[in-house]
C-alpha cells in the first residue's frame, strides 16, 4: 500500500479529513523549504504538495507565478526539489510528499531518470498540471513501476465519461479543481462542489481532494465536510511572499494558518 493510501485510510478510521498544504519549493529561497515542510507537518498537515518551480506556470494566478519567479531567481531546479524530499525523508518517514508542477522540467530530465530519482528520495506522488492521461501512457507506466502515485486533476468542465477514464488512470487520490480559473482566483461554491463530488464518487473509490479557492478556516471546514482532502495553496504562498524579507518567520507564520485550518476541520 502506498504511503498516500495508508494516510487516507488512517484518517478515515479516525473520521478525519486530510489537510494538504501546497508550497512552491525554493520560495523565497531553497533553505526555507525544509524547515517549512516540517513546520507544516507539526501544524497538522497530512500530505505535502511541493511545487516544482517553472518559468511558465500557465494554470497559476499571480501569487504562485511570483513564487516560481522567486524560487527560480535562486536557481531551484527539479533536482534540487528532489534533494529537498530526500532531506525531509531523513527525519520523516510517514508524511506523503507529492510533487506538483508542469511537465517540461520532468520531460527534460527524462521520465525514466525522474522515476528512478523520485523513488530513491522517497517521493510518493506526482501531479503534472499539463499532462492529461491521453498523453501519459509511458509516464504512467514508469511511475507505477517506481511505486509513485500519479495524481490527476478533475475540473468543473470534466464530463462523466472522462471522470471515469481519469480515475482509472490515476492512483493515490484525485484532485478536484473547484473553480474555472487559475490558482488563487474566485472563491468556490460548496454546494456545486458537493454535487460534482457525488458524480466523481460514482466512478472511483479513491479519496477526492479539493483545491483552488480555499482561503480561510471557514472554507477549509466547509470543504472538509464534503471532500476527503482539503488542498490549500495561494493563501500560504501569499504569507511566504509577505515575509520574504524575514525568512526565519516563514515556517511559524505559515504553520499558524494551517494549524488554524486543522482545528476548524477537526471541530
Amino acid at each position: 500500500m502506498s504511503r498516500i493510501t495508508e494516510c487516507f485510510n488512517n484518517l478515515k478510521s479516525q473520521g478525519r479529513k486530510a489537510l494538504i498544504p501546497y508550497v512552491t519549493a525554493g520560495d523565497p529561497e531553497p533553505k526555507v523549504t525544509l524547515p517549512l515542510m516540517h513546520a507544516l507537518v507539526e501544524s497538522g498537515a497530512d500530505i505535502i504538495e511541493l511545487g516544482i518551480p517553472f518559468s511558465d506556470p500557465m494554470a497559476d494566478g499571480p501569487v504562485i507565478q511570483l513564487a516560481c519567479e522567486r524560487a527560480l531567481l535562486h536557481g531551484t531546479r527539479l533536482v534540487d526539489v528532489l534533494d529537498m524530499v530526500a532531506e525531509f525523508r531523513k527525519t520523516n518517514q510517514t508524511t506523503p510528499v507529492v510533487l506538483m508542477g508542469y511537465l517540461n522540467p520532468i520531460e527534460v530530465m527524462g521520465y525514466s531518470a525522474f522515476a528512478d530519482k523520485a523513488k530513491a528520495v522517497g517521493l510518493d506522488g506526482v501531479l503534472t498540471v499539463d499532462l492529461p492521461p491521453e498523453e501519459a501512457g509511458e509516464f504512467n507506466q514508469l511511475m507505477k513501476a517506481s511505486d509513485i502515485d500519479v495524481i490527476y486533476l478533475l475540473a468543473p468542465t470534466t464530463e462523466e465519461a472522462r471522470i471515469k477514464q481519469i480515475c482509472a488512470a490515476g492512483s493515490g487520490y484525485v484532485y478536484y479543481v473547484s473553480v474555472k480559473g487559475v490558482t488563487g482566483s474566485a472563491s468556490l461554491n460548496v454546494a456545486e462542489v458537493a454535487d460534482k463530488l457525488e458524480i466523481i464518487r460514482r466512478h472511483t473509490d479513491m479519496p477526492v481532494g479539493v483545491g483552488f479557492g480555499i482561503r480561510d478556516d471557514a472554507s477549509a471546514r466547509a470543504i472538509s465536510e464534503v471532500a476527503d482532502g482539503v488542498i490549500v495553496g495561494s493563501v500560504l504562498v501569499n504569507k511566504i511572499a509577505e515575509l520574504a524579507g524575514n525568512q526565519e518567520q516563514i515556517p511559524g507564520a505559515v504553520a499558524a494558518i494551517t494549524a488554524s485550518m486543522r482545528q476548524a476541520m477537526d471541530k
Partner: protein
Amino acid sequence: MPTKEDLAIAKQMPDAGGHFGQFGGRYVSETLMAALQQLEQTYEKLWRDPQFQAEFDHDLAHYVGRPSPLYHAERLSRELGGAQIYLKREDLNHTGAHKVNNTIGQALLAKFTGKPRVSAETGAGQHGVATATVAARLGLECTVYMGEEDIRRQALNVYRMKLLGAEVVSVTSGTRTLKDAMNEAMRDWVTNVDNTFYIIGTAAGPHPYPKLVRDFQSIIGREARQQCLAQTGKLPDALVACVGGGSNAIGLFHPFIEDADVRMIGVEAGGYGIETGQHAAPLSSHCRPGVLHGNRTCLMSDEGGQVIGTHSVSAGLDYPGVGPEHSYLQEIGRAEYTAINDDEALHAFRHLTLTEGIMPALESSHAVAEAMKMAPTMGKDQIILVNLSGRGDKDIHTVAEIDGINF
C-alpha cells in the same frame, strides 16, 4: 531523404490525437480539455461543410482581397545574378499580413459555436490586429494579450487594436513578450472557457489548433502553387518563409509536401547570432524536445527544463517554441531550417524597399534575407518562392530607432 510513402503519410498528419510523430498532442490542464474536444468536433464537422467553406472562401475573396499576387521581383533577381525570386504578397491582404486568413476562419468557428467573446495573444501585433478586425466585423467582444516589451515596440498596432474596439492587456510577467502573452491568454481561457473562443495566432498550441491554423493558412500554398505553375510553367525549386510559431511557413509548405523536388526552407530569428545564445531559433540551433503551451515541440529550455528568454529584432518571431509540424518536418528531413540574424534581416528590409519598392515586415525580412543568400548560388532558370508574410509599416519605428531617428 523521406520516401514517397513517408511524404504521403506526412501530408496526412496529424493523427487523431493531434500528434505529428513525437510532436504535437494536447498538453493542457483539465479545465480546458472539454473545450478543446468540443472545438475539435466542431472544426472537423464545419471544415467539411460546404456552407462553412463557401462563407470562408467568400470572406477571403471579398474581405481579405484574395488571391494575393505572386510577384516576380525582377530587379532584385537580376541584381543578385542567380535564381528568380518570386514574392507571395501576403502583405497586400487586409490588415497587412497573412494572419487574417486564420482569424477569418477561427472567427467563423466562434460564430458557429455562438461564443460572444474572443481572446488572442499577439507578439508583433499583427495577429492582435487581425483578431480585433474580425471581432469588430462580427460584433464580438475582444481581448488581446500582449507583452509589455512588445507594446513598446509595436505602439502603432496597439493603437490600431484599440481603434478596432479591442481591449489590449499589457502582460508584465516573465520576459514580457509573446510567450508570456500566450500564458496569460491561456489563463484567461481557463477562467472564461464558457463564453470565450480563444483565437490562437500561430500553428502551435494544443490540438486541434496546429491543424486548424495550418488548414486556414494553407490557402497561401495552394494559391502559390497554382500561380507559379501558371506564370512559369513549373514548380518552384525552393520555398522560403520565416518561422516564429510558423503559421505563414506551414501555410506555404503544406500543399507542397508531396512535391519532393521542392525544397522547403524555414528561416528562424538568429537574433544577435546563434553562437551568442541570444536568438529565437529552437529548430536550427539544436532541437531539445519540450512541452509548452499545450504541445510537444522543439523548445528553447535549459538543462532544468526552464524556458529560456529569447531575442529577436522582430517581435513576431520572438518565441522560444515552434509549431509542432515544423519540428516533425525537420525530424523526417522534409523541411530545412536555418537562421538569419537581426542585422541581416534589417539589411534585407532596406534592400527590398530600395530595389522593389516593397517594404517587408521585419519578420518577413528574415525570409527575404535567406533568399538573397541563396539566389546567387543557384541558376538563373531556378525559382525561389518567398512568402512575404507581412508589410513593414508597423516596423518603421523600430528601424527609425536603430537609425537614431525620433519622431
